[in-house]
């Protein structure tokens, strides 16, 4: 089957006052396949949220795409006229669960009036009652209380609000759902409920695939089929969940996995180490491999030339050690 969403050599920079640029996403090629959860992980400032914004067409100046392609459903998204993208793609083919979805809902209207607006925007022939019925049926299907529809956002708990946003985002059965840190503000029990909802959406084929952006690798261990690790605006390693979590090969992935604190024996029995140093300034990233200043295994090559990708099976690595 064809990929649902593809980014080719994507470069997206923030242009600052005075002309300097922050190279937040700098040459990323990545595809979202049908029926999968793709985890995109990395630390703050690695470009994962920027990538999510661009592929969901929600980026705004000063963030600009300077190079590359994004294709979905046979469209070249970056050259698609705004109005067409709005009608054909947004909410309909690609939908989003925003970062900090806590404030994503208009505070002064009931949930159902947003559902009506959203549905009728894409299906003008639908009546208000039909729209409400559809939303209600969806809530039932997903075992969420119907009262959500007549509530105002502030009347819902944080976890419930988050799940409501997810339901609203998927009302039109979009193929792709891009979820940017959808659980980072939630308690673990609410987090699990949100994850369960996302999995149900997949099982019921309401959506086909999820791009799940997070900094929490243990969470991706639970939900992801494949994982892409980003560092300083670039991909360093992409592979299946098992490969990334249990046999990481890139020194950064390995270090990152090594610094995870989970309540399990192995964490207490050895000394967990962090990564020395800090991520580079993306106004002026280091030459060669961007991880080299912090890498314990760097060789001469690393400081000079960017590592090319190497693919073995499902795994792709950008590291000189693999060549």
């Amino acid at each position: 089957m064809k990929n649902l969403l593809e980014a080719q050599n994507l470069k997206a920079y923030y242009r600052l006052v005075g002309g300097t640029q922050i190279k937040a996403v700098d040459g990323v090629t990545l595809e979202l396949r049908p029926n999968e959860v793709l985890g995109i992980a990395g630390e703050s400032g690695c470009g994962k949220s920027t990538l999510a914004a661009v592929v969901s067409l929600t980026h705004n100046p000063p963030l600009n795409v300077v190079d590359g392609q994004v294709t979905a459903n046979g469209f070249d998204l970056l050259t698609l006229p705004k109005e067409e993208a709005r009608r054909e793609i947004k909410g309909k083919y690609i939908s989003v669960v925003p970062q900090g979805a806590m404030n994503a809902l208009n505070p002064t209207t009931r949930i159902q009036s947003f559902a009506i607006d959203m549905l009728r925007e894409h299906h003008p022939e639908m009546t208000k009652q039909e729209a409400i019925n559809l939303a209600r049926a969806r809530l039932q299907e997903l075992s969420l209380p119907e009262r959500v529809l007549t509530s105002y956002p502030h009347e819902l708990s944080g976890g419930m609000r988050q799940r409501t946003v997810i339901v609203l985002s998927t009302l039109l059965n979009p193929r792709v759902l891009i979820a940017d840190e959808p659980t980072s503000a939630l308690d673990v029990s609410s987090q699990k409920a949100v994850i369960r909802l996302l999995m149900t959406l997949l099982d019921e084929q309401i959506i086909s695939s999820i791009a799940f952006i997070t900094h929490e690798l243990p969470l991706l261990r639970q939900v992801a089929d494949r994982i892409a690790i980003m560092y300083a605006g670039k991909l360093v390693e992409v592979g299946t969940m098992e490969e990334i979590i249990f046999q990481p090969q890139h020194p950064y992935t390995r270090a990152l996995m090594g610094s995870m604190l989970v309540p399990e024996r192995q964490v207490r029995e050895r000394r967990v180490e962090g990564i020395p140093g800090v991520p580079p300034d993306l106004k002026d990233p280091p030459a060669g491999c961007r991880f080299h200043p912090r890498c314990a295994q760097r060789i001469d090559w690393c400081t000079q030339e960017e590592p090319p990708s190497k693919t073995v099976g499902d795994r792709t690595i950008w590291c000189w050690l693999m060549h």
Partner: protein
Amino acid sequence: MVLANALNNSKKQRQPLLQVENLTKVFGSGKHEVVAVEDVSFEIYPGEIISLLGESGSGKTTTARMILRLSQPTRGRILFNGRDIQTMKGIDYWRQVQAIFQDPFSSFNSFYSVHSFLSKAFRLKGNHVSKAQQRALMEESMEKVGLNAEELLFKRPHELSGGQRQRLMIARALLISPELLIADEPTSMIDASSRVGILNMLMELSRDLGMSIMFITHDIGLAYYTSDRLLIMNKGRIVERGPSVEVVENPTNEYTRRLLADVPTLSKKWAL
């Protein structure tokens, strides 16, 4: 973790450093009354690392604020070395009990340099430290937390990374060298790769200086990694307590069990 066991064994004979007795905090009044902390008692022994673990709204931060004397208990009392802390002079108490806060950004007054941030600590020492001594002490403590004083001392907070700021907070605590350090979510806003470094540093300090640390956190992984004992808090009450390994591996309380089941781990996959 031999140390932890040794501590546990010798606990019986030692005097607790801090005793919290029947602590209760009620906010608001009448119909709007909210009981944030209810009848909480525990003690911290010298040199011990414990974690007060709970989700948001569990009352853990309120408890920490009362221990730091940033908030008055409604009922109950707190004893430090056997003395009610309300009867101590603020400066005397804070010389021995200090804190590291959660947000490395709002912990710094952006109008002042690193130097003036650190020099605040000397107030607690009285005024017998000369400027030259102060400078030397600052440099020493910055070095201990892996920061270059030469380079950073006269920078403004906005020129520093979150990790650097948290290290400075530790350097500040070192200058005061308290007997008890309350670390309120010290790494929740810091990336995983820097987080561990900061936690390791705190653990080493505790070991080297015999300083007790109480982590206030929602992160079970962090609590488990760092602490000798855990106190699990839910809805204002402590629902379970005990040595970290026991609590995590054999939770007896229903809430603790559910909490542990909901935390994503690496070895087990959730049944969804």
